[in-house]
């Protein structure tokens, strides 16, 4: 590269930075600022009526994983907390799997409609977004509660004698989250399938692949970016879900989001809440890292 050209490209880089400066400052203040405050709070002591006292303490982080017995003072793992973490991760993974299982055929169906119909189908998919999340969640409650639509129907048909307890179980939370996050899976899957060259399927059949092999070896690898995007879009908010587990889990099936809220509310333990928030962030980061690695390995192999 010539000297003049190098100077020009440096100049261009400087202009680029200058132009994006306002956005970068805003991002720094609005995103990193609060995050930093939360990080600092996690290392302070709790105040009597909430808030924090400015005094270094590791109690917040200690309480995340461990607990001290009130009577004999021995230290053991905080079983209740670990249960909540495990439930959060488990339900989020299950939600991702369920939305994928339902979303793939749905997205496939939409992508194979005539082009002038697709917009309508996509519009229908996004309709739930137009309603408040809380209202949608209560609507689900109306369907699955003991005297609700589903149970009454099953009893009316004579399939069951007693109403099935769904509300306030993990299943209820799962149903709710799968319903709420399904569009987030369908949209990126649709985008990927829409770009998919359907002649690949014929090429696969032509080369002796069975239907299953065509799906596994041709379709899924090619639409993989859509699968990864959809999974991230569903998994990350599922992990931090608050409203759905609160309403459908009824306080019994707490997830991390509810637990954090508890610490900032009745629990009056802001440092613990802050430490939990950081932990949630860490889990999300790890999940994203796994996804990114999974996608780039694919590229490197080639």
């Amino acid at each position, binding site marked *: 590269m010539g000297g003049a050209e190098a100077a020009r490209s440096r100049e261009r880089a400087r202009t680029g930075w200058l132009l994006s400066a306002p956005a970068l400052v805003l991002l720094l203040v609005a995103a990193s600022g609060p995050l930093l405050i939360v990080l600092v709070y996690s290392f302070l002591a709790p105040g009597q009526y909430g808030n924090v006292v400015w005094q270094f303490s590791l109690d917040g982080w200690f309480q995340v994983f461990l607990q001290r017995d009130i009577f004999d003072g021995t230290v053991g793992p905080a079983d209740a907390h670990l249960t909540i973490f495990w439930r959060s991760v488990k339900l989020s993974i299950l939600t991702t799997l369920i939305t994928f299982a339902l979303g793939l055929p749905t997205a496939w169906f939409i992508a194979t409609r005539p082009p002038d119909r697709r917009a309508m189908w996509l519009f229908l998919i996004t309709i739930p977004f137009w309603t408040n999340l809380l209202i949608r969640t209560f609507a689900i409650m109306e369907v699955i509660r003991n005297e609700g639509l589903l149970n009454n129907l099953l009893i009316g048909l004579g399939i069951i004698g007693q109403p099935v307890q769904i509300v306030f179980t993990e299943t209820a939370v799962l149903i709710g989250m799968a319903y709420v996050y399904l569009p987030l899976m369908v949209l990126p899957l649709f985008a990927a399938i829409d770009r998919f060259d359907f002649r690949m399927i014929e*090429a696969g059949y032509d*080369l*002796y692949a069975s239907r299953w092999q065509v799906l596994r070896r*041709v379709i899924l690898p090619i639409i993989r970016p859509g699968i990864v995007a959809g999974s991230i879009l569903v998994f990350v908010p599922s992990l931090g879900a608050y409203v759905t587990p609160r309403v459908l889990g009824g306080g019994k099936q707490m997830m991390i989001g509810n637990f954090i809220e508890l610490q900032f509310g009745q629990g009056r333990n802001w440092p613990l809440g802050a430490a939990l928030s950081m932990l949630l962030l860490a889990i999300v980061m790890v999940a994203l890292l796994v996804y990114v690695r999974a996608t780039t390995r694919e590229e490197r192999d080639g």
Partner: protein
Amino acid sequence: MVKVFGSGDHALRALDDVSLTIETGEFFTLLGPSGCGKTTLLRCIAGFETPTAGAILLSGRDFTAEPPNRRPVNTVFQSYALFPHLTVAQNIGFGLEMLGRPRAEVAATVERMLALVKLEAFAGRRPQQLSGGQQQRVALARALAPAPQVLLLDEPLSALDLKLRKEMQGELKRLQHETGITFVFVTHDQEEALTMSDRIGVMSEGRLLQIGAPREIYNHPVNRFVADFIGETNFLRGRVAQDGLYLATGERVGAAPPSGARIGEATLAVRPEQVRLEGPGDPGSLSARVTQTVYFGTDTHCHLHLADGTEIIARLQSPPSGDVGLAPGAEVGVRFAEGALQVLGD
């Protein structure tokens, strides 16, 4: 075989009573204009379409109801349809892997195929990182790797530039010769068909009009469509009589009528290179007037106006000076080479 798309008023007979036998190891070409049903016929053989009526037999076995993945037939798609997520080597090995062949055998065959299409250096690349011609060779290698009984090629060369196309034509012939696999090749380029094929099937509007060796199709087209589609042809209104061929205007232009030709009015056809020019008024020649000469390099096309108004073209070899010396308006005599006149059905 018949293939109908749609039903009722919208029904379209894409294949209309097509009947065809292709020999083992043959290079067979389907030739015809766009939309005549070439791809549809190929897709029926591959198993992507089910014929509305009729059957497809391979070495005597009926394959009509078998799905594509159970037919010993592979396709080189017009668009190549290479798998973008696999490397060149993985693309080529895909078919054998699906057939459940052992790893070592797959690897060995892939090696052999890469050498055959001269792409050894590109084994680890993705299809997107290859040129059009290289992609085309990968598609070929991928289809050849499982050693099918029949290889179907749907206009595989149409996306290539002229020079590469010529090169690939030679390569295809060589591959077919080396592997001994039956090739069914689709093209709408008549020159490609004439130079490469053992036999050609000319199609139009879902019908197979004529099947024959390139020479036979070129020199003895069965009807006006075939004569017109393959090479350039002059058509003359004329008459077949017991003692020779006559133009509608009465001049005798040919000797004894070809055997089997029906006596009566007919369309006569003659290739431009079989039209001879003489001095005006030479005995036995037709008088004509030059309207235009077009220089093509090796040849010069001379457009002629016959006495009855018919326009014909004579193809003359260009002389060293490049000028045939025929100005528009010049009077000449026209004669057709011995046996060059064809009597067409319709």
